[in-house]
């Protein structure tokens, strides 16, 4: 394995949880609901997966339990939004803190204990393709899942009938309702589905990427949330953002080991956050519109399609039947 191959392989691996969580949050937000609790949910589900795997020895049960945790938290968000008409941001933020503290409290006895790992499962023939093989086909099942998920969500949202409905309840819930779409029910469904994926992301951390439970997951959920905005609510771009962050982190770690450039570790730790601010500024401040304006006419439609920044129009607003 060459240096480049192992670097890229590491990026695909370490980006997997953010990719999964990003796709989950994307589905939720496309349905018009903001689940702000990602940071806490990922911690709680990672802790759950680690503990269940240790106690029962069953990785399947561990993953399922983590997904259930994610769904439970998502349920509180969507229930309080739809049934109680509370602010999604307020409830989501309280849940972020609650879940993180709950994870720390319940996970204390299992803190820093050796954890179980999802078995490594290289795909027989494909893994021997030069470059692509080691990068994409030499992982475990959760990492493959993260790759498949991007394709699946892309296909679902843009190429299927239910995907069209999903977009419509996030953009124009009134119109969708008039056409007979059960808006509230589908918002429940997609928020729960997104929550399950966030739980899966937590399990991916504790069972594969950052083995075990170490309380150092704080921040990952916020990065995933920011990447959904950076990706302008498009599955492919969200995944791209996740790989970009993972790539920059791996570069930063390499820089840290470098003897020539003496970079304090703290500067490296700050990088993702500077990046988060800068990317959000680029994504939301109208710079992209200018880029579109100055592209040659031939490429304008393509540029517009790739760069147009618009959140789902009904994002975060409750839908009321009249």
């Amino acid at each position: 394995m060459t240096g480049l191959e192992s670097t890229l392989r590491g990026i695909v691996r370490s980006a997997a949880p953010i990719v999964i969580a990003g796709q989950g949050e994307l589905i939720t937000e496309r349905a018009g609901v903001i689940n702000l609790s990602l940071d806490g949910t990922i911690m709680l589900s990672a802790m759950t997966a680690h503990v269940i795997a240790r106690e029962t020895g069953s990785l399947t049960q561990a993953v399922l339990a983590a997904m259930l945790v994610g769904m439970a938290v998502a349920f509180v968000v969507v229930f309080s939004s739809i049934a109680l008409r509370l602010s999604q941001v307020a409830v989501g933020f309280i849940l972020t803190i609650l879940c993180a503290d709950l994870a720390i409290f319940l996970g204390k006895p299992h803190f820093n204990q050796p954890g179980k790992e999802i078995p490594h499962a290289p795909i027989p023939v494909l893994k021997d393709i030069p470059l692509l093989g080691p990068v994409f086909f030499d992982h475990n099942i959760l990492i493959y899942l993260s790759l498949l998920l991007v394709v699946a969500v892309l296909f679902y949202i843009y190429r299927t009938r239910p995907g069209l409905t999903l977009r419509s309840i996030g953009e124009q819930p009134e119109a969708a309702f008039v056409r007979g779409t059960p808006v509230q029910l589908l918002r429940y469904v997609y928020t729960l589905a997104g929550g399950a994926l966030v739980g899966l992301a937590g399990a991916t951390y504790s069972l594969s990427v950052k083995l075990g439970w170490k309380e150092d997951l704080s921040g990952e959920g916020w990065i995933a949330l920011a990447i959904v905005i950076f990706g302008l609510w498009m599955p492919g771009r969200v995944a791209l953002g996740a790989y970009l962050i993972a790539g920059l982190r791996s570069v930063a770690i390499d820089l840290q080991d470098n003897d020539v450039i003496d970079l304090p570790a703290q500067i490296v730790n700050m990088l993702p956050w500077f990046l988060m601010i800068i990317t959000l500024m680029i994504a939301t401040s109208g710079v992209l519109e200018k880029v579109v304006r100055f592209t040659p006419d031939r490429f304008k439609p393509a540029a517009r399609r790739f760069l147009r920044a618009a959140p789902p129009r009904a994002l975060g607003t409750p839908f009321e039947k009249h």
Partner: protein
Amino acid sequence: MTTPANTTQRPASQSAPPGGLSRSMIWRWVLDMLPAMLTPFLGILAALVIIVLILEWQGADPQVAWDYLYEGTLEDNIRRADLVAYWMPLAVTSLGLVLTYTAGLWNIGVEGQLIMGAIGATWAVRLFAESDSPPLGLDLGRDGVLVMCFVFAALTAAFWALIAAVLKTRGGVNEIFGGVALNFIAQTFNMYLVSNGGPWQPTGSRATETARFPENARLPTFQDYRRLSPTTIYVTVGVFVVVVLIMYVSKWGLQLRAMGKNQHSAFLLGVRTERNVVLSMALCGAMAGLGGAYRVLAPDVSKLTAAPSGGIGFLAILVVLLASMSAVLIPFVSFVFAVLSKGGQRIESGFQWDYDIVLDRSLVRVLQSTVVLMVVLAFGARNRFFPPRSAQPPVDDDTNGDTNDG
């Protein structure tokens, strides 16, 4: 939308009968207010039930936990003084947050602002109070040094809040995300200063903290309670008065409320929303900075540690949400939360020593956020299923006006 049927003559519903309040009106008022008063208690009750269940599950007696909570916070005067010392930074930070949350600004960056306040205070100590020769060569005396500490803390933290505010108004970055990122950056910056040969770590030291502050940078303390400083109490009371004046007397407070209800409408009505966003964030940051200064200048700390905030910023957000942004409720709610946080340490150590049960102190943080969640949910349920009269759609209030002319 009114029909001619009810445009006829019904007196305005507010007008009281001539002989003062009738008994039925009082009764109706009580019935109206009852859910509002009971709701928070229902929420708190639900949270307590959850915590009791967790305690039972962990094999700990809730009654004993309650005793530890009391013992660790309120039993004698020394404990009470320690409690007040913990309460003050929480209260002053929460008071600042009232300004931003009323305006609908989710200032999650308050944790980072608190840390920057702590750093600012330490910076002032390093500039003005180093015992042998202060770098600036000024001799301000202890009072002068402490004033500079508070000023520096407020300014650095306000600067940090301004970054988030400008990112929001000019960069289009939501204050939640800007705040989260700035929190992590502030934390990391603080770590950089005091760890691994950082510029503020004393040479030769391996501890991740600065040296203890010199004598002329220590807050005065009470005669009998060496860990509590009256200065923090005076400053906090002053901040409380300022916030109450802003919220209940000044026109600016009214503008903030209007922005919180609907920023766009407020803008259309002539409120300078962008200026108010920046101002309220900066003021909130300054107050959080004072909280940070209390934390590092506290007589028993008196140095910048690796985690000067100890999560007080996030706790303050919970306080403000629970107090539903009411400035006058802040002292009480933050007091209860301070009791829980302080008591949590005693609960942990008590169960460990006396019963050999490992009960991490994060349990009380779970309790705090559960209480807030449950109270918020309870209010949601109340407004949804037993709406207060003011929240019901008006039936005949708009009929005698000139709103419909067609």
